[in-house]
């Protein structure tokens, strides 16, 4: 499972290099890969740091490349991101544990179904957003985006705060 997570991390870190192959992107990508590798082995917070760095690398690559937004590849990268987090976490849990029959197959099936559903959802949302952006021109778009992001985060925080505190590992 750790190998699969490492492969996904490699995809996450390597994709921005395909968008803008520059030294700065490669440097950020190397650092992100190191953190991701360490995080897969050691702990999820280190992996999160690596993923955040990989997102920074992706942002830099997009900024350097410029051009119109490519939402399809972004949705695929999102799926890689979520499956990476889940596989790395599962790999850490399954490390030095006896694995029951059919468990790995069931997990892979669950991730595949989830990737399919979320991928379709993300593509649908991005398609809707593209259509909307072509027809509606909003004034102060950056400000609205910032407010939207803040509202989303607060909404997620409120939704999750209903649940109890996480158990300590």
């Amino acid at each position, binding site marked *: 499972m750790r190998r699969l997570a490492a492969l996904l991390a490699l995809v996450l870190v390597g994709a921005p290099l395909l968008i803008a192959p520059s030294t700065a992107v490669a440097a950020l990508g190397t650092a992100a890969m190191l953190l991701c590798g360490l995080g897969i082995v050691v702990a999820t917070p280190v992996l999160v740091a690596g993923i955040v760095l990989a*997102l*920074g690398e992706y*942002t830099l690559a*997009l900024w350097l490349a410029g051009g119109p937004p490519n939402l399809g590849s*972004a949705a695929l990268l999102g799926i890689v*991101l979520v499956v990476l*987090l889940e596989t790395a*976490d599962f790999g850490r849990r*399954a490390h030095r544990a006896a694995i029951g029959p059919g468990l790995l197959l069931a997990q892979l099936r669950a991730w595949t179904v989830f990737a399919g559903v979320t991928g379709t959802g993300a593509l649908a949302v991005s398609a809707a957003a593209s259509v909307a952006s072509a027809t509606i021109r909003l004034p102060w778009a950056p400000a609205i985006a910032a407010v939207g992001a803040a509202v989303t985060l607060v909404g997620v925080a409120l939704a999750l705060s209903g649940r109890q505190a996480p158990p300590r590992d």
Partner: protein
Amino acid sequence: MTMRLTPLALSVVTVVAWGLILGVLSGRAELVIVVLPLLLGLARVGRTDAPRRWSLARALSAERVFEGERVTVSVTVTADERVPLLELFEPLPPTLRLVSGENRALFTLAPGGSVEWRYEVECVRRGRVGLGTVHARHWDRAGLEASETSVTLPGQLRVYPRPLRLRRLPGPRRMQAFVGNYVAPSVGEGIEPGDIREFAAGDRVRHVNWRASLRFRRLFVTQYHQERNADVVLMLDTLTEAGAAPATTLDASVRAAAALITGYLGRKDRVGLIEYCGPFRWVRPSSGRAHQERLFEALLRADVMFSYVTQEVGLVPRRVLPPQALVVAISPLLDPRFEKALVDLAARGFDLVVLSPSPIPLVRPTVRPSARGDLACRLWALERRARADALLRAGITIVDWDPAEPLEAALAQLTPARRRRAAR
């Protein structure tokens, strides 16, 4: 049992937040799309309930084993409903060592499904080992939520001290009244020929010594030495111990005691056990297999117990410490209270042998090698020798035993030493 968020959920939220911040700052829509699957994944939170109808059963391949033997632990999980992901963890006490398999497992179970999980442990130290609690954690498929519970299962393992091989045992000087394997000085029924005397009314014809009778032209009969058993009392020093488990002086003493118990009971002797931990704890001398079990159970409990109480040997009842008994004291001679008890026993005229497992080779591996450590060990060895000499002068036979060496080799020194002492 309620499902709670795991650290993974917080990690997902963190990545989402960073993605949105970077998206807003850079003004690129791709970053929002990247974190969209993560947001959709969070929608799964709260959709899984902890399964309630599942059960655990545990079986051990053996419940009574000796040190060094292996036991297979089988845990069977049965579920009446679907269990997406169940993590089980069985913490092992320090007296058990995992040999094969894992003591943590992850399962998925279909409704009505059952799965068996096995691992093998090695019993490294004597004692009663409780494999009591199995910790269970239910996860959802994504690992975003989990609930925890503990299940107490019956399962106790009795690990008896490893028996050391012994062919020769210290022989007692005095015998008891019951039939045994020792040739007693007294004459009577037996197979070992003793003295010859003139025939008297009532003597059996088959005891007539025909060779002597023909020579002296009078009837003579052969007398035979009786074959008797002996009372052996093992006195175990549990006042203190040295070394690191499972190789402390007490562990070595208990193994030696187990070997002596097995050896003496095999010779039909009556064996008793006195544990001296300040106050006395004892098992009365007796013989037979059931008594061996009783003694081994007492050895399972033997442990160092700090006490301010120091009882005198005179307090031990005669039925526990018979006057004719051979007393085998097993002690590293670290506590002066035990030495005082030995001197007291010798003064009371007991046939006393001291088997002293040396603490030096057991402590040596636990300290860092250094010249100072070497010097300390040499000084310690000299001090032990001086103490042993002092006890020797008090008429006590001492056998110094390096627990790394076979017990039999140590006891082999004892026979000539006891013979010399008897000659004096």
